[in-house]
């Protein structure tokens, strides 16, 4: 045991002292944040507005189709399918004579793709226009009255609460989704980064031929385990540094919120605490910050972080030993490593795809099953946990998933250890999968 300790220490210290560790620890969160900010910024600023020329054979759409900053309808009389591009329009919409109760085909010709969301938007506007036209022509409601009804009816606001028996917690689907996605992604990323690091470490020992020197001092299994644990500790250190980093960033960001806004938020909080069902008055910005604060406060961070650490360690151990086994059978050729790695990287990538689907329906059968099976459970379960325990994820599922994962990594480590033991001293020929299975399961 003392020797494993020595190996762990060496693996840990040489990596922590390495410059790439420092750089990746501080650069990755910055890139992450810049990425998020960048996409949001582009999403807001980068919305293109489209001018759509309309050739209406009914003559009344001009009154009903509403233009705004996203889509502007151009009803200039001289416009047609030949010259719309010259008149600065990106597309031309041809509306045929409408026949009642019949699906009618509208044609849109374009020189420049409008994009899926714009097309959806356009279709919705056309339908609204038809509805409006029908209401006016069939009833004798005035136009002003219809508009005011429309405005007055747009007041439903869905608030979600997770039902935990006696008390109901306000929950935010959006935040759960975001946190779940981020957790799943992080596990995916860390498994890959640190799994590959284990593999490279093993390959280094094999190709530099120090492996045989070391296995005359310790058992191969001790060497493998020491490496895996040492590198895992590096990963954990990095994760804890990230938490500190984000916490600090959160504090700094709060300092930038104007004072008046904070006061408003405080008022809302006290109003809410007194049990006033009605929202206190406040500006839109204050309302948003208030809601964000509410949902952040109601999220059980301690639970999420401790589960994250468990699933990170479990998933890492599950895959790292397999990566170590691959590293042990590879000779100098990096191409060989690529092809041997495939059966291990595929399940990780699949888990990621499954997670992206499961997160849409976190209590559905796909989500439940894939969060129990150890191959995918670290990634998928971490995406589900932010939705709430024990509501979305019942306790039995959590515990079963944890036990299966622990059993899973004990099994993969045992199996990988047996492949590693033979592979690390074998030079020259590339072993087949059949060879490796034989090493793993025959004495």
């Amino acid at each position: 045991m003392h020797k494993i300790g020595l190996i762990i220490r060496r693996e840990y210290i040489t990596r922590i002292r390495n410059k790439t560790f420092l750089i990746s620890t501080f650069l990755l969160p910055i890139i992450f944040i810049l990425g998020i900010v960048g996409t949001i910024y582009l999403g807001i600023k980068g919305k293109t507005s489209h001018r759509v020329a309309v050739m209406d054979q009914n003559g009344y759409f001009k009154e009903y189709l509403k233009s705004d900053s996203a889509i502007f309808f151009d009803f200039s009389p001289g416009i047609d399918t030949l010259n719309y591009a010259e008149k600065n329009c990106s597309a031309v919409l041809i509306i045929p004579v409408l026949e009642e109760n019949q699906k009618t085909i509208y044609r849109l010709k374009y020189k420049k793709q409008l994009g899926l969301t714009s097309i959806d938007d356009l279709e919705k506007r056309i339908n609204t226009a038809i509805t409006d036209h029908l209401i006016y022509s069939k009833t004798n409601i005035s136009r002003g009255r219809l508009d005011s009804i429309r405005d007055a009816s747009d007041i439903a606001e869905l608030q979600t609460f997770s039902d935990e028996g006696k008390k109901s917690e306000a929950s935010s689907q959006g935040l759960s989704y975001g946190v779940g996605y981020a957790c799943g992604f992080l596990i995916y990323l860390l498994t890959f980064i640190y799994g590959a690091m284990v593999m490279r470490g093993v390959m280094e020992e094999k190709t530099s031929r120090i492996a045989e020197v070391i296995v005359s001092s310790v058992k191969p299994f001790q060497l493998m385990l020491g490496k895996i644990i040492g590198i895992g500790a590096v990963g954990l250190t990095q994760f804890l540094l990230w938490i500190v980093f984000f916490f600090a960033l959160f504090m700094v960001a709060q300092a930038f919120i104007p004072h008046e806004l904070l006061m408003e938020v405080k008022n809302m909080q006290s109003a809410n605490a007194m049990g006033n069902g009605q929202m206190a008055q406040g500006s839109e910005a204050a309302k948003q910050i208030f809601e964000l604060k509410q949902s952040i406060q109601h999220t059980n961070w301690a639970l999420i972080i401790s589960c994250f650490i468990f699933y990170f360690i479990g998933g890492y151990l599950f895959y790292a030993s397999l990566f170590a086994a691959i590293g042990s059978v590879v000779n100098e050729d990096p191409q060989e490593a690529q092809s041997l790695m495939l059966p291990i990287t595929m399940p990780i990538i699949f888990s990621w795809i499954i997670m992206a689907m499961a997160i849409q329906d976190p209590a559905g059968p796909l989500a439940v099953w894939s969060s129990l099976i150890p191959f995918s459970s670290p990634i998928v379960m971490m995406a589900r946990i932010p939705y709430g325990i024990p509501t979305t994820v019942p306790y039995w599922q959590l515990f079963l998933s944890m036990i299966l994962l622990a059993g899973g990594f004990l099994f993969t480590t045992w199996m990988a250890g047996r492949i590693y033991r033979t592979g690390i001293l074998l030079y020259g020929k590339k072993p087949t999968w059949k060879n490796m299975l034989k090493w793993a399961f025959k004495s």
Partner: protein
Amino acid sequence: MLEVEHLKKYFTTQKAVDDISFKVNKGGIFGLLGPNGAGKTTLIRMITGIFYPDEGSILFNGKKFIPDADYARIGYMPEERGLYKKMKIGEQAVYLAQLKGLSAADALVQVKEWFIRFEMQSWWNKKIEDLSKGMAQKLQFVITVLHRPELIILDEPFSGLDPVNANLIKDEIFRLAAGGASIIFSTHRMEQVEEICDHIVLVNKGKKILDGTVSEIKQEYKENLFRIAATPFPALNGNELFEVITKKEESMTIRIKNGHTPNDVLRYFIDHQSNISGFSELLPSLNEIFIKLVEGTSLSRQFQPNQS
């Protein structure tokens, strides 16, 4: 000090080690010889605890060898050797000594002592990639013996060394043996074996084919060859005593026929008024014995199907 008895290790495609026994004495330098692929490395890996033998036993000072407990008593320098390329040399040596069971403080003292002995103090903060092949070899030797092992196993320790450094290592080997360490020296360079080893074992195709001290073996394989220098040579035709192998101006190599002695030959020369200026026995070199024994068996080992 080390006794190997009926050791066997069969792999699926061949019998790597097939019933080999030998003994290594305390303070002895033992040569393990054999052509490539004879099973030397497999044999050594079993002695160092890397492989478990299929059959047979290894006794260490009369007690059964237990890898976990006995790692610290063995120093092994494999033929395929290397060190961490990016780790500082001093730290690396201390780390590897600790893995062998030395305490951190003891390891540091030992490493410093050896670095001074080999004049490597300035290497402490360098990395392996900065060293030449010969320098790395010296370091590897130091790392092998740092923890004062009782049994030192060296697989081709001189490959890649210049004569000066080879001598340095050779002297160290003698010094360690004099200090009580047993040394197993594996090689196929016979001239080194003759110079260094006092006892040898020759393995071929997984089996032991020769075992004894260097002089015993030479006696056993001698072919009654003698070199005689004399002027003038007597008439050589038709004598019953010896046959001439090679002949030079003033000396020749002869083989004395069975049933005759060197005395008979000398008497023959004297009787023929020949002035003898030199007479000596020619013992075969290990190299010749090695080639004689191994030749004919195809050097690259065939893979034979294994019945077991």
